[in-house]
């Protein structure tokens, strides 16, 4: 075993040289055969050791704060505990309780609705903006910066800002609607409009996806467009037959990332509505937060967290599996 306990490094010799086994006990001339000769580690093994040394802070952090925490929370799912007064083993009771918990079902429904609304809108909006910003327009760099900036703002600050914008009487949105003769709804104060309000707010952060789309758009080989133009394809045909298919890996990436993010939505409902009105914006993560930090049911909250993890995993796997049908990679041969 190597120094780090990992697999023995491959010490194949350089071309023309004999292969050297690091553990070989070859006596040097004049030395007793029983006394092993010291072989200094090869350059490659030193490199690998240093690689692990530099990786170790992240590895240690991951093991302690991510993997370790996940294992601890998995263990908690089998207990009833408030972390203050002890641990009571309950087996699978927490998992059973999930099925009968109306708030879990409600929060799942709210989260699913949010995801089904926010993700497609986000993808379409960001792609539209990226397509527009890929054109040779004046001050293109400035426009790209303007569209990207909102996505770097703190989620809490954005939520507070949007709470003001959604104010029924004096908010910007209803003010703008009133200018065109539309009486706006009560937005986050309304049971019907609270969740759509959060979906609308999610579009504020399309800048991140837009940037990734821009990179994807710029990596599409121009000869494809030239060839299509020569063949008489119009702009629309080029967009749907070249741009979108060539961009499909990027769309796929954004779909996965946005979907994972949407399932974990929390800040908006926590800051703006506290899950109301009447639990209309009770997302799964908010319910998890309530169960843990407000009700001190850490065992059950851990169960909720793992349920969410499995749901996201399932949706991600399904999406990845489906990608074979609609994601095209350059150079890929399809039968």
């Amino acid at each position, binding site marked *: 075993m190597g120094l780090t306990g990992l697999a023995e490094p491959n010490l194949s010799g350089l071309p023309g040289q004999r292969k050297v086994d690091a553990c070989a006990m070859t006596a040097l001339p004049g030395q007793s055969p029983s006394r092993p000769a010291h072989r200094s580690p090869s350059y490659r093994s030193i490199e690998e050791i240093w690689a692990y040394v530099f990786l170790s802070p992240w590895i240690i952090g991951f093991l302690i704060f991510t993997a370790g925490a996940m294992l601890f929370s998995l263990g908690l799912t089998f207990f009833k505990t408030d972390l*203050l007064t002890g641990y009571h083993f309950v087996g699978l009771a927490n998992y059973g309780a999930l099925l009968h918990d109306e708030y879990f079902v409600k929060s799942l429904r709210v989260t699913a609705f949010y995801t089904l609304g926010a993700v497609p809108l986000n993808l379409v909006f960001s792609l539209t903006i990226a397509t527009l910003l890929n054109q040779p327009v004046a001050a293109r760099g400035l426009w790209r910066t303007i569209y990207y900036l909102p996505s770097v703002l703190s989620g809490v600050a954005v939520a507070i800002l949007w709470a003001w914008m959604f104010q029924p009487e004096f908010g910007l949105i209803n003010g703008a609607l009133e200018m065109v003769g539309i009486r706006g709804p009560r937005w986050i104060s309304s049971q019907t409009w609270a969740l759509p309000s959060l979906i609308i707010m999610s579009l504020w952060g399309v800048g991140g996806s837009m940037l990734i789309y821009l990179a994807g758009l710029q990596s599409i080989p121009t000869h494809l467009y030239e060839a299509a133009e020569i063949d008489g394809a119009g702009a629309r045909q080029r967009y749907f037959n070249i741009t979108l298919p060539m961009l499909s890996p990027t769309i796929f990436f954004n779909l996965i990332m946005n979907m994972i993010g949407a399932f974990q939505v929390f800040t908006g409902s926590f800051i703006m509505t506290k899950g109301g009105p009447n639990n209309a914006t009770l997302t799964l993560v908010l319910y998890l937060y309530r169960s843990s*930090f*407000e009700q001190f049911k850490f065992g059950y909250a851990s169960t909720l967290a793992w349920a969410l993890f499995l749901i996201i995993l399932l949706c991600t796997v399904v999406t990845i599996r489906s990608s074979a049908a609609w994601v095209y990679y350059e150079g890929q041969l399809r039968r």
Partner: protein
Amino acid sequence: MEQVRKLNRRDFLRWSAMAAAASALAACAPAAPATKVAVTSAPAEATTAVGATAAPQATAAPAANVELRWADWPDMVGTKEAADKFQQDNPGVTVTFEAFGDSFDQKLMAQCVAGTAPDVLSIFGYMFFAFADKGQILDLKPFVDKNMTKGDVDDFFPWHWPNGFTVPETGQLCGMPWKINITALAFNKDAFDEVGVAYPTESWDHANYADAMRKLLKTGDGGKVERYGGMIPAWDQARFLCHVQAYGGHMVDPKDRTKCLLGEKEAQEALEWLRKAFWDDKVLVPDWGQVSNLGGIGPVFIQGKCATVEEGLSAIGYDLIEATKSSPNPIKWGVMHMPKGPAGRFALGSTDGYAIYKNSKNAELAWKFSYFLSQDLYQKANVIEYQRQLPPRRSQFKYFDEIVVTPWQEKGIDMSIFTKALEMGYPRPEEAFVKQQESGVILQEALDKVFGEARAPVTEFIAAAEKINAANKAS
């Protein structure tokens, strides 16, 4: 000739990265502890059971370089002066103030889990019971029995302290009081004059109240409300309760804190009175969002958008008074006791106070400090002058009269009704379930349905009561 091994780029990068990593790790290392003088007479504490402590030892001189951590709301007048005075009277003690932020109750509890909670915690209402239930705060009864005389204890109002701070099931005394916030009725005298309705009096009941609000409602062109008859924050769990109590009901069964009584006849009658005012007569401001849209309770009332307001002394004594001072044309307004109901008059009397963390290394000192905060220096500077709220001791009412009542009496606002309310004995602390957090979620749902957009009938509370009972009984 021996060749000198030169530092190549790879080596330079490697060593630079190691130096940077070492510096980062060194920066993350905790600071070396300050040199402490040996403690000569540390008070001994023994925790005998969850939430309870053994009788404290005789008060000893504080050890040198003792830090007392005090967690409270930020930016308050008087905190620095109080800390300085306490430090001056107790040499060797450093009072470290830790400011609260949002969700402070959850953060405090997380600190308890981590074992790093401050010594003195400023909490209120159901939080005392929640922290006591989790065994995170000390029972102050031994400290009171040892350090306070009967006269001293009688200086407080028993319903407030100690009763309001005592867990009924265990008798644990959870905290020392900070201040008292009582709800009352602020009314717009100009609006009452305009519609020819007599000002509210002590004999006002719920029928008079509803009738006045109907007459005070003013609508303009297109049915847009120009002035609401009243504002009752019934969507707030602590604020609708006084009406339920006025009708002879309760939210929580006084004999059994696992039982919700909002489905009972008396509570249903009170809730129906509120629902009718909200959705049949439409005299009440419909939601808090509307209030904040209109600028907050101060501007809403002072600008005449709402003829009556049920609010606490914190809002009446601070927000309304500040709005009056800053408004170029403020209304004439007054304050009256909450209207009576069939079962009497009730108002919310809050139980803000100070608890001591169970793992505090300076429990005696923490007690001494929380007792100190209930005395004249802090009460005058912080509670009365700054917050314009009531001090918890009768002997301190003279300061409230001098600083709040007298100046505003001259403007026709009788703030003495707050001290009279305490003498009359009708304020009540919050009612809290054993599993308050779970119960609160269910209750809020019902409140949102009945007093929110859905405008559901008050029978929602019957279903909510059943759910709350089940939640409290569940293990």
